């Protein structure tokens, strides 16, 4: 991302964001609410449009991708799991239907693989949304996002609705997914314990810009003085 700005109704949401995420790595975006983390990741799969600046995905400007294809290569897991009142199987089938790809038999293998990656058993396939807890729904959302075998996975505070134990186990699974598939991940989070648990690189966003960027261990152990330290110390005490 180079010089990415977003303004809406004359309010500045993002200002001059420059970020590089190497293929196969994890980048965690942290920062106070309203600092532009979610707005930023929504640009990567083009759910929103930046006002100025460029974003390249897999070496190609996102404006050169067909939007549907881009969204298959760059999946997103939203903050609140939304299963659209459908069963697990129907949810997993959706991205395949939209891609118009392959036969039902072909999906079956992928579905089982995606469920397994998300830490769910194959016999969950026939369950309905109403039978699932929030944490389970979030895992189904994760599995659904993995159906297209994306190159990049965006996650917008995926643990925010979960109790600490489910959150921990989801994070462990995410690390597993990363290790097993080599997926590039950009994850928005606001809890420092989670940041440490997942590791990788992190960027601290403050008021629509990237205030600091570096290895998680480096930044959390020795935060630079000023607003970044204030924020990191603040969330640690809150947590």
């Amino acid at each position: 991302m180079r010089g990415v700005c977003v303004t809406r109704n004359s309010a500045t949401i993002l200002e001059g964001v420059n970020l590089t995420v190497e293929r196969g790595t994890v980048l965690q975006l942290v920062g106070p609410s309203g600092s532009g983390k979610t707005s930023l990741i929504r640009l990567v799969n083009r759910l929103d449009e930046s006002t100025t600046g460029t974003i390249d995905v897999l070496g190609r400007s996102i404006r050169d991708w067909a939007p549907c294809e881009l969204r298959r290569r760059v999946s997103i897991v939203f903050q609140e799991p939304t299963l659209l009142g459908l069963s697990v199987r129907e949810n997993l089938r959706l991205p395949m239907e939209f891609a118009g790809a392959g036969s039902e038999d072909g999906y079956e293998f992928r579905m089982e693989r995606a469920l397994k990656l998300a830490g769910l058993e194959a016999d969950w396939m026939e369950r309905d949304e109403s039978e699932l807890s929030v944490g389970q729904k979030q895992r189904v959302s994760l599995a659904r996002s993995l159906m297209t075998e994306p190159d990049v996975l965006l996650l917008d505070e995926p643990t925010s609705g979960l109790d600490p134990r489910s959150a921990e186990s989801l994070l462990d699974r995410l690390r597993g997914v990363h290790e097993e598939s080599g997926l590039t991940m950009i994850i928005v989070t606001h809890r420092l314990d989670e940041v440490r648990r997942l590791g990788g690189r992190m960027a601290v966003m403050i008021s629509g810009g990237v205030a600091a960027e570096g290895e998680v261990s480096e930044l959390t152990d020795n935060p630079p003085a000023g607003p970044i330290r204030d924020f990191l110390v603040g969330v640690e005490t809150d947590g």
Partner: protein
Amino acid sequence: MADPIIEIGYVQILLLLGIPAVAVVFSVRLGLGLAREISIGTARSLIQLTAVGLVIGQVFRYATWYSVLLLLGVMTLIAGLTGARRSGVGMPRLVTVLPVVLGGVTALTMIYITQVVLSVRSWDPRYLVPLGGMLLGNGMTAATLAIERLVADLKAGTRDVEVLLALGAVPKAAVRRIQQAAVRSAMMPTINTMMIVGIIQLPGMMTGQMLGGTPPLEAAMYQMLILVSIMFVTLLTSALMTSFVAARLFTDALQLDRVALGRLGS
């Protein structure tokens, strides 16, 4: 054959106005605060119906293709503009698109009914004007209901739509369920009428035809023809209009235009 229909003249109108007069008295006594509305409503009905009776009377008298088409054209325009305003979403393009869609769908249906089913071989306003009026009126209501529902559901279901877009859906697929619900809700009044017609009440047109001396069975068959036509017009109009409105709420990059959606009313 039945006696010719009893004419409603000045004396009868005056006697008829006794009914709203009594209603006004009731309204005052019961403190309903409706005296003014009943009076204005009665006056407006009388004036509007007299005017429309006179205008259609002229069209009936000359029965030329251009007088019939002119009347139907004006009716289409009024129905389209009223529908665009009543849908309450305030999308400027509706003002031009709704009359066109309404006119097109109504014309298509009327051509089938008059030319194929009834084989009307002249520009007979007796068939074309009442049929056109009923189709336009019902089509307008259906379009209004469908658009209103579509916009309300899109606002409430923004997250669902974005989840589908994020999974690689094109806008058409992302709004499919919401659009289906909107069309269904716009169709419900017509479907319900089809279910109970003749059991609970006699529809207006059949009643009118019987008053005019048409044998009940024949009047019933004409009612059937109207009902089926209305059902088709409401279906097609609401499907086309919801597609049009939905399509305008997405950008070229297949993003839900939340700003444009937020600007719409309802």
